[in-house]
């Protein structure tokens, strides 16, 4: 059975986010006032083969912890959904 996985990677709280801060500083010059808390992350999507939802989630979490994120600076939210093809 195939499962669609989406991993949303964000910087851990307390870790400086220079890209987010730069975007936030630039917004007033473009006429956008009142925007705060900008943070920049990334999304990784893939499809995995597993026998059930639980196994798919375990695989995805393991892959995430061992490779997709660096736990020193990053956190991730993993979403697993039954289905094939692109998200």
């Amino acid at each position: 059975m195939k499962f669609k996985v989406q991993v949303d990677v964000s910087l851990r709280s307390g870790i400086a986010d220079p890209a987010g801060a730069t975007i936030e500083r630039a917004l007033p010059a473009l006429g956008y006032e009142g925007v705060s808390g900008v943070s920049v992350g990334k999304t990784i999507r893939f499809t995995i083969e597993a026998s059930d939802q639980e196994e798919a989630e375990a695989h995805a979490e393991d892959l995430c912890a061992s490779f997709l994120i660096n736990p020193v600076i990053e956190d991730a939210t993993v979403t697993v959904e039954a289905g094939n093809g692109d998200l």
Partner: protein
Amino acid sequence: MTALVGVVVFPGSNCEMDCVESVGLLGGEGRLLWHGDDDVSGVDAVIVPGGFAHGDYLRPGAIARFSPVMSAVARFAADGGPVVGICNGFQVLTEAGLLPGALQKNSGLKFLCQPSTIRVSSENSSLTSRASVGDELSIPINHFEGNYTCDSETLAKLRGEDMIVLRYVDNPNGSVDDIAGVCNEGRNVVGLMPHPERACNEILGSSDGGVLLGSLLDLAA
């Protein structure tokens, strides 16, 4: 005996020949080690050089740490062998868990390619035994992700156990506590963002890097 220094080459490394050249200038012999090899061929020390190993995709060093040679480097380090990671090599060693902390984007979001002055904070490491605490060295930096970061517990440990080896005099990238280089608990593995191999000959503007790489050769000989 001439110290034999292995210099790891990943697809995308670009400072390996500078390392081989500077090791030769200092009286040692450099030998390239391909990333797909599963041993370090009996070398006396290992340098993981700068560049963009595996294109720096995902994160710098994230893919390189899975190269077969890195298991051999980890075994070599566990046996007490001296290992130095320079720039991208430092990033690879943190991703591999051989050094604490991580390197993120420079605080100013600029790629920095400039001379830097670094101060020796500990002379008790495989890279600083020829130096004295407080020595100031002129060594260039060349990086986008050199902003050293770690959690507060790790920082307290680095300070308490004298694991901060080099600090910037004028912090160019936002690194916590001005950190330019750290070592592991065994003090045989060192990572730094500045490039000592580019400062081993006066014709390049500085030969201060020779103090650092010379220390490595002393240990390797």
